[in-house]
């Protein structure tokens, strides 16, 4: 595995203006070998623009991008030799077969053998359809062929722009497994962009969040999960007499309400377990038939993400 302390991809102070609109503001982040780095942001946040700049499709106004030590504008061919990717949709030459398409990319790279081509075809599980024309491929197959194309030359940096778009759940899982295998077992630095937190949660080791062309922060998955912990916890109490149950609950700073025959209470996260034990006990003592008490997860990762990006739109900035 590559030396982990050295960033494989280092982006500093990237600025980009298209027309009159500034698309990217001072984007900086680093990604390392052996990790799956999620690039997360709502539509129009600047994910694809950033990716296009990294792979050299777009020029940059300001900033530097180093890939494995080579600056992309100063040493384009050397920098790109370590990059593989899919940008936007996996478009291929429809009148060529899958194999012929791969051969096209093989010829643009150095030292790619026939065996290597067969190997990646096996990796993406396209062996039985590789000699069909692309016009007969489904979107999922094209996406997998795109991955095959991107990893053909064993890149140190693999960049996939919204790779799960249009894939069915089985396809998404398959792709996830491939990417995790490449990062964790083969030491590739994998960068995946998405606007779905749930997808990132299952795939990524670290996530960089971007909104309105600004990098809001880079978090490990654990950090994000801990963000879901809140000051309040919510419990749903299902009992035969909700009115009586509501009256019985005696806790000074608790939010209490009845909704559709269910008592909902929110209590401080501190001593929550102790308090809910007391409430349970009081309800039973008071003669209410208590059926269930359920803890409700108040905040999901998706909410964290929405909150993070929404804060920024209000000008709030970083989470504390």
């Amino acid at each position, binding site marked *: 595995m590559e030396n982990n302390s050295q960033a494989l991809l280092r982006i500093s102070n990237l600025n980009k203006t298209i027309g009159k609109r500034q698309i990217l503001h001072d984007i900086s982040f680093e990604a390392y070998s052996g990790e799956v780095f999620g690039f997360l942001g709502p539509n129009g946040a600047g994910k694809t623009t950033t990716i*296009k700049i990294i792979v050299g*499709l777009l020029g940059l106004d300001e900033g530097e991008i180093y890939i494995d030590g080579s600056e992309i504008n100063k040493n384009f*061919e050397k920098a790109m030799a370590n990059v*593989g990717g899919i940008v*936007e949709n996996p*478009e291929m*030459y429809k009148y060529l077969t899958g194999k012929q398409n791969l051969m096209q990319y093989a*010829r*643009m790279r150095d030292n790619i053998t026939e065996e290597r081509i067969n190997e990646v075809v096996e990796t993406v599980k396209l062996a039985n359809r590789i000699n069909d024309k692309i016009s007969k491929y489904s979107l999922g197959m094209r996406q997998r062929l795109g991955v095959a194309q991107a990893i053909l030359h064993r890149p140190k940096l693999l960049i996939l722009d919204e790779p799960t778009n249009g894939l069915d759940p089985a396809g998404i899982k398959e792709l996830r497994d491939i990417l995790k295998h490449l990062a964790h077992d083969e030491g590739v630095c994998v960068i995946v962009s998405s606007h779905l937190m749930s997808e990132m949660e299952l795939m990524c080791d670290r996530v960089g969040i971007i909104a309105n062309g600004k990098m809001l922060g880079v978090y490990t998955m654990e950090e994000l999960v801990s963000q879901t912990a809140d000051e309040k916890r919510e419990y749903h109490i299902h009992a035969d007499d909700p009115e009586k149950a509501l009256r019985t609950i005696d806790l000074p700073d608790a939010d209490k309400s009845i909704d559709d025959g269910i008592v909902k209470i929110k209590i401080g996260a501190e001593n929550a377990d102790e308090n809910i034990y007391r409430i349970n006990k009081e309800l039973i003592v008071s003669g209410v038939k208590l059926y269930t008490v359920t803890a409700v997860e108040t905040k999901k990762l998706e909410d964290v993400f929405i909150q993070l990006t929404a804060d920024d739109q209000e000008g709030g900035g970083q989470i504390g």
Partner: protein
Amino acid sequence: MAKFFRLVHNEYIKTFKKLSTRIMFVLVVLAAVGLSGIAALTKTEYERWDSMPYGSPEGEDSYRAEIDWEENTKTPGWENRVKMYEYLIEYGENAEDFRADMAYELPDSLGTDEYEEYLDLIFKEKDWKNILGTMLEKTDDSQKGTKWEYQYRIDNDICPGNTWKDELISTVADIRNSEDLFDENLFDENGGDRQAAKNEEAIALYRLENDLEYANVDSAELSFTDESGNFTMWQAMITAANLVPLVGLLIIVIAGNSVASEFSQGTIKFLLINPVKRWKILMSKYFTVLSVGYIMLAILYVVMIPASGIAVGFDAFSAPFLSCTNGVVTEGSSFLWVAKAYLLNSISIVIMATLAFAVSSLLRSSAFSIGISVFFMLAGTGIAELLANLKMDWARYLVFSNMNLTSIAEGNPMFAHQTLGFAIGVIIAHMAVFILTAWDGFVRREV
């Protein structure tokens, strides 16, 4: 360099795997075969006219009709002509060869007795050498060409008749007869100058001496028949230079698609994220477009060889190409002559393909680039001519005013003092602008 050819290899695969490209090649082959077919049909038609009966009973009837006409109109010299037709009727069978022609050519000024003497000589003498010998004596010294002809025929044992040499001998004789005319006036009645006539004479003599039944010479117009009126495979092949603009049309389509289709298919992103500089990709595309054009031309050429031979016969296969400067004849390869004609005609298609390529790279629209280039290919020369007629002198700097290098080299430019060097300079300048435009559009634009 190896990497560049790998890129070209990619472009070739992309180009040739497309159905449209394959159809284009079929079209080129069909055009070559079709043109040969037209040559064959034209030849058959000519031969049908040529084989019309002549000197047969029908011929006899026509002679009698001529006699009736002469007797009725009584134009000066009619007695002589009636006598001639009577001889023709009497010696009908012999009249089929040179004798009839010789009789027709007798001058009207001869007195009746003298005229009859000649007719006796022409029709009653069996040995043609005696006829010519006597004619030679009787011919006036001022008729240098005719005298030379008789002497030449006797010396070289060439009996007048329907052989290919007759044409050449009479060409030389005609030129020599009017030589004095050339000396007085620089131009003959056909507008050719004295030197051109001398060159023509030299070529005719060269062919006679070297026994060349078929030979190719440069002629201004492309036609299925050569100078002697023969249908030869070479004439069919040189006529096929007219098909070069068809190849131009096809190559404009390929050029217009080469860059634009990568954008419309979305494959440009996959092409450009590879560790290859963009200008190398662009150059590999340009190289591919032009080389595919020349492959089409080569196919046209190669298909035309057997096709034209099968259509009009391989008789002239070994004919050389003769050119003459200052009376010195040089023998060259006819294969090269035809190839040169195709290549000269290909200059305009290279320019138009480059234009299509540049527009395609700049605007990323294949339809637009094909449309513009085809328009200029078809209308460019016309526009240039129109501007030339309107005395708009700046139009000499347009590429369309300079594309016909052949006529500029021959000294027939559209604008005054438009030299070959000037034309080539204008073409190179335009090409440079087109290539830089393509370059800028492809290398600098953001994807």
